[in-house]
């Protein structure tokens, strides 16, 4: 029995290495967190709208068509970097992009959008960051896909790049 035990270390070793190998080859981002809100309803919230008179009420905005939700702020440089992609999304047929202005100065935000262009059909003001917490946001910019029933289907943390742009479009087509 003793002699068979001697081969155990090599077996454990091999198993652990296989797991490491698996983790290396799959497509994963070790620093990105999967959203707990996937396949759940959009959090309910009500707040000011940045540009409109009428209040932003989540139940009015979500649950009708596919919407993209983009958390942004003027003080966030990657938000500036990805802005063109957000505009491209809004130019696509059938997609509306909702903006959520996170912990920002509203005047500055309005100016920022004037300068860079406004892709958002509506913008919610999240002055104290509570809405972001409800969405599980931890590193803006973050972009969500919400389907026509108001269910969150996808989240990306960080700026939208070419690769992510393509991926989001793919997912939107699948949802349709």
């Amino acid at each position, binding site marked *: 029995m003793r002699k068979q035990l001697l081969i155990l*270390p090599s077996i454990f*070793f091999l198993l652990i290495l296989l797991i490491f190998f698996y*983790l290396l080859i799959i497509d994963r981002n070790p620093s990105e967190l999967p959203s707990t809100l996937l396949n759940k309803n959009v959090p309910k919230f009500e707040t000011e709208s940045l540009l409109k008179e009428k209040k932003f009420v989540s139940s009015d905005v979500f649950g009708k068509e596919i919407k993209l939700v983009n958390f942004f702020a003027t003080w966030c440089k990657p938000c500036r970097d990805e802005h063109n992609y957000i505009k491209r999304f809004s130019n696509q047929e059938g997609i509306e992009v909702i903006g959520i202005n996170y912990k920002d100065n509203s005047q500055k935000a309005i100016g920022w959008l004037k300068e860079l262009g406004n892709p958002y059909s509506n913008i919610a003001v999240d002055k104290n960051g509570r809405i972001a917490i409800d969405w599980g946001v931890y590193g803006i910019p973050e972009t969500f896909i919400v389907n026509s029933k108001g269910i969150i289907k996808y989240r990306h943390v960080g700026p939208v790049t070419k690769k992510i742009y393509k991926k989001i479009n793919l997912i939107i087509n699948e949802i349709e």
Partner: protein
Amino acid sequence: MAPYLGNLSLWLSLFFAISQFFVSKKNKKSKFITISVIGLLISSLISFFLLMYSHVVSDFSVLNVFQNSHTTKPLLYKVSGTWGNHEGSMLLWILVLTIFNYFIFKLYNEKNSIFISKTLETQAFITAGFILFTVLTSNPFEIISPTQADGLGFNPILQDPALAIHPPLLYIGYVGFSAAFSISIATLALENNEKIAWHSYMKPFVVAAWTFLTIGIAFGAVWAYYELGWGGWWFWDPVENASFMPWLLGTALLHSLITVEKKKSLQSWVLLLSILAFLLSVVGTFLVRSGILTSVHTFALDPSRGIYILAFTAILGGYALVLFGLKSKKYLNNSYFSFFSKEGSILINNILMVVVCSSVFLGTIYPLLVEAFTNNKISVGEPYYNSTVVPIMIPAILIMGIGPILSWGKGDKSKTFKKIFPSVLLTAIITLFIFLFYQSYSLIGIVGIVLAFWIISNNVIILFQKRENLSNGMIVAHLGIGLLILGITGSSVWQEEKIIQMKVNNETNIKEYNIIFKEINEIKGPNYFALQGNFFVYDKNKNIITKLQPENRFYPVTNNFTTEVSIHTNLFRDLYMVLGEGNLNDGWIVRIYYNPLVIWIWIGALTIFLGGLISMNSNLKKLQRLS
């Protein structure tokens, strides 16, 4: 010029490593092996110093220098910046590997040529593997064109003397274990008709590795303490654990090697441990550099490099463990010994060290396992390790007190109790005194104090009794552990903190001290601007104790903000102050910590290091007698 020569030298070292691998199969100290070993050493020295030269002269045509350095970086950090990045640190690994390779080579004598040759063959494989990894995936001598005027700078919190010396010390540790690994392979693979005392060759390497790993980890911890600004020094980060696990196995190995030496028992166990200690070091390297997880310590890397390291680990570890599985039978010993003996206490030490190491390993890779099998991500943080590691360490420390004075073979219980009675008494008295004086009712605090003074009293008494048969290195190292536990207990259990907003001329109190915010200044450093608060600290007799000067720094090149903590240390406590945000009108947020007994952590670590050095010295003398 320098990078081209450096690259050439690096490829040359690969050539020498591979040639050493093949030439060593001749099983003798031939001219060729001498050339390989020395050529390997010199070529790696040259490539290392050429990279350092490029950093020091700020040669930004070298990609590595461009990415990690800047003209305004102080000279010391240009030098240490050589190994403060992934590619450069690989050159340091290689350099230390070639130096230890040379030490193994120096062990040749008329009787052991087959054994040493086999050891060198294994070592050559390891070294070649590291060099190949470096030239294929992480070559520091890559050129960028056109040459930029200045570099991207360097993270300011890494510009620190403790952190500069931290990697070289750690690598001596890991490479030392690689030598033990190679010796183990040689022992298992050969028939050993010459009856080579393989353990006598292994011991000095293990002692050296363990000693330097200890002090290397300590420097990392002391840096975290005074640099990161939250009064802590260990976070159970995966990369910290990656250095702690080989240390735990190294501790076990250190002790069981004594049993092999004196009693010829636990031989197959030691052969396995020496393989595992180095394997864990390599797995640690993998975790840090593969991109499999993120941590404040990881070098930002891509998975393809990870696959190489994994493959290398698989080959090395697979070969070693299968060899162990097949060949260790002949070292299985049927000599049994009493529980209540020195061997017994060493066995218990080994088991507890391995249990702790397994738990740390489990906690470290568990988030990866969960992620692989579910789609969830979890954290395994300090609370987990406090619940698992700390309780297991307690019996280990208790045994550490009496183990050294137990005799080999069955011990006399009454005689032993007579021997340890003085230290039991001393421990009880000191604990009672502290309990009454500080009036603390913290259970873990009392346990910590009891353990600390149990070890300290035992070893101080042994020192006074001048026992001839007990190694001085061991006594000093054990004493160091006692001091370490004292420091850890004091600073964790009885830490006090005060957070307050202060305007200039405000004052506040913490414990027996009165602190006055005298002024706020702006200062300019070599590569930073800073806002510095000046706080005068007075004791209850209105005598000034010190001036604390915490800073907030801004490094323009890397656009980094850092806080510089201000610490006043004495034997009883640290006063630790962090300057927060603020302005002249509202005042500044100030965080003050009263950390009892912190300095004993560092004194303890240094004492352990000293004990290790003493032990290294006596082991080297034994080795010389062997030749």
